[in-house]
């Protein structure tokens, strides 16, 4: 071990400002908001891949329901957004329809649609993120991989939510032109940095939707995933609930399960 030198001491002093200690150095609300988003993201790093089954329940304002069942595969990509594959099992007329998405931290995601009747792979334009995902209240930007870089942040307050201390922050889409939102307000618990609730404000800055996330379980002693995500559209009275089950982590998926060759053989 090297003896403590003046040189290393200077280095430490120079580095200090870059590691802000909250109690000593004042942190702006923007920095704190970003720090919360980054910590939440960091805690989910290293999951590798996972598969899960989802039931999507659409409900209109008269209470009429319609269900879709979807199988999902997700692959973590180091240094970029995740790759994901979603396959529809029901309704029966869209059975076998699949979406392949390469999400990116910066720039547009890449997305392909597989139509089983024609055995056709179609590229879809992913620039406009506000479109509805298969008739649900979830838009493509809600369903896409939530990369830290896609938003800017601002911490608002700490409060109690469902009996636990939470951080409340606002986030604003970087690609404001193509997002359906002017801002989102997120509730994240302080203990585990899990997303509990989001309010979405439309481009005219009025409240559009509220997402509530319930039933968190921890997998591999590290990764938290929810059983239920419910989104209510306050302007139309419609809602969509996603019920997740059969989570399975580190199943050995690789890039080769997420290309057009594998897309054409999905079932």
């Amino acid at each position: 071990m090297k003896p403590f030198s003046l040189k290393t001491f200077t280095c430490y002093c120079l580095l200090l400002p870059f590691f802000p200690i909250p109690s000593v150095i004042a942190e702006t609300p923007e920095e704190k908001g970003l720090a919360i988003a980054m910590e939440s993201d960091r805690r989910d790093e290293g999951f590798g891949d996972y598969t899960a089954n989802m039931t999507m329940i659409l409900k209109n304002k008269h209470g009429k329901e319609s269900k879709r069942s979807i199988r999902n595969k997700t692959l973590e990509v180091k240094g970029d957004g995740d790759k994901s594959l979603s396959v529809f099992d029901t309704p029966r007329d869209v059975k076998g329809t699949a979406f392949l998405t390469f999400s990116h931290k910066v720039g547009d995601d890449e997305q392909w649609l597989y139509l089983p009747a024609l055995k056709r792979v179609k590229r879809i334009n992913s620039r406009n993120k506000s479109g509805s995902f298969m008739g649900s209240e979830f838009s493509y930007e809600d369903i896409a991989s939530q990369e830290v870089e896609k938003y800017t942040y601002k911490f608002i307050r700490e409060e109690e939510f469902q009996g636990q201390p939470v951080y409340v922050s606002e986030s604003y889409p970087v690609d404001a032109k193509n997002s359906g939102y002017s801002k989102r307000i997120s509730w994240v618990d302080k203990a585990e940095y899990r997303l509990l609730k989001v309010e979405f404000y439309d481009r005219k800055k009025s409240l559009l939707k509220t997402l509530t996330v319930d039933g968190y379980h921890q997998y591999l002693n590290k990764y938290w995933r929810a059983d239920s995500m419910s989104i209510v559209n306050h302007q139309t009275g419609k809602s969509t609930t996603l019920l997740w089950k059969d989570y399975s982590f580190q199943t050995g998926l690789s890039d080769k399960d997420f290309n057009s060759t594998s897309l054409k053989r999905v079932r």
Partner: protein
Amino acid sequence: MSDNTIFQKYLLTGGICLCFLFLFNCNSSAFEADTELSVQGFLFLENGAWPHQESYSASTAVDLEIYHEILNNFHFSMEAFYRIDSLDKERTHGDIRVAELLYFNDNLEIMLGVGRVFWGATEFVHLVDIINQTDQVEELDGEEKLGQPMIHLTVPRNWGAVEAFVLPWFRERTFPGENGRLRTPLPVDTDRAVYESGAEQSHIDLAFRYTTTMGNTDLGLYYFNGTARDPVLLLSQNSPSNLSLSPFYEQIGQTGLDLQMTAGEWLFKGEAYYRTGQSRSYGATTFGFEYTLVGIAETMMDLGILGEYVYDDRDDGWLPTIYENDIMCGLRLAVNDMDDLNILLGVIRDIHSGSTIMAIEASRRLGEAIRLNLDASFFINMDSHDPAFGLARDDFIKLEIVWYW
């Protein structure tokens, strides 16, 4: 040997394969069977141009799909189809659409049997799609295809995928019969098919294809060598009073290209091919754009705007085709409601003659397992020199109900 006997041969082979698989499925992990039953009715708005044609017709079809995962990376799938039509005996037909064994690992994929392959990018005209024969009696748009026997090897790599096809048996195109609507002025007699190759349907066709994604572009490039899927129709005389058309299938070499590209809110698509082997070499191309307006009028509805153009070098009248120098435009409305209501309006117009085809397709779900399709086509200002002139009196409305279980 007629295509029908061959069909029975497939059916038998498929059946044997299936029994074989059931016998050895001790470690079966997944077995699925899906059935589709559909009923459709056509209403033609004018009397037919030719004798024996009716103003309406009804038909029913069944489509049975079986899928069995023998091992994790070894799958069997089969799809059999049969239609009964009230008017046209040529439309009463069946086909094994799929009967394939698929093996894959990280480095390759091999498919053996009867399969369906789609190549292409554009929405209106599918120029480069060549592996499967068109089931012309099914749909006017040519998107329904017959199952093609093949050995299909795919080698996926980081830089793209290379595919090789050996196609050991040729499928003849289906054509409406004498009583059928939406046909050529003289009926096509499929029993009198003529081949350039002495091997006829047994000619072994080959194809190679390379596909890749480069940033915002998906690209496909192929070479096909074998029997042309689109026959030249020759006038033939069965008896002094009975004239018909005979399909003539030539040997061709075809190089094709297809392209899909995203650029901001735009999607650009293009297809082109160059063909040799017929009396003159020629090329054809189609290209266009798609632009989607998301959430129009503060609703969840998306409106897609489509514009495409098609040009065929045979435009000089050497070998007339329907799509020689045509412009196409369309509107696609996705309502994004629970019932998945979609409406497509398309117009195809021949630039020289002004012949115009207008088509409307609307579709929605009823409950969880029924789908309702309403299609209508109108043939407007059809020029008597246009190869599609035979359709001039065939404006129709088609209603179809499909049950899934």
